[in-house]
């Protein structure tokens, strides 16, 4: 018999997790912002900032169509 247990369930959403843990909405938002997992935060750092620039996006587009 395998020692591994197959998990079929879907993980809870972050909202549901916070609710189950009894964390108020604002505190939950603060924690998720702290770890960079909230909806507003995306990749950050210099390289990510460069990729967000119009100049970079246009350069990539022209490279693709060339």
């Amino acid at each position, binding site marked *: 018999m395998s020692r*591994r247990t197959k998990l*079929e369930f879907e993980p809870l959403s972050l909202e549901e997790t*916070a609710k*189950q*843990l009894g*964390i108020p909405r604002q505190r*939950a938002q603060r*924690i*998720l912002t*702290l770890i960079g997992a909230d909806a507003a935060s995306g990749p950050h750092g210099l390289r990510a900032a460069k990729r967000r620039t119009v100049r970079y996006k246009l350069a990539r587009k022209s490279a693709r169509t060339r």
Partner: protein
Amino acid sequence: MPKPKQQRVFLNIPYDKQFERTYLAYVTALSAMGFLPRATLGIGGNRRLDRIASLIESCSYSIHDLSRVQLNRNAPRTPRFNMPFELGLAVAWARANRHHRWLVFESVERRLAKSMSDLDGTDPYIHDGKVRGVMREVCNAFIRPDQPTVPQMMKMYRDLRRSVPKILHDAGTQSLFAARVFSDLCLAAAGLRSKYVRVLPRRTASRRR
């Protein structure tokens, strides 16, 4: 009796300073697997035992770390009996309710046979007392469609550790074992899961046809 939730896992570990890294590793690894860890942190009062029992009953899985078998430093020097006792509660519950599964974790190979020979025939998951070992053994214990890798879990763990000072500051405590800190850590770990672990799209009925 509360209804057992599939995502809930009862985490039975020692609450001491030396165990902090392993504790964070468990929270990370279980959250990476999509679990919602539950623990006896913050449970107090006269009816503590009843509340521990109902906490176990509300979980579909329980993880029992029996690696703390040493005597503690403070006089009178005693071993910790809470973990084996709660394992006993979980085993009794699992015998009455087939939906509950319990797993034993240890840090030293073959020590369980000596410390608790009643569990002979049960293979514990040996994590060597290391963070990576906990991740590895949780991956050995469970399998899921969007299985996280150990490197992904290690990334989550490092991010979680970085967030600890702020979480402690916000909770106004120095202890990672405070009830509020535990729930904040669980939410942070769940957030890190959504950041690092790729979630597979669910197959719909029309696509399966």
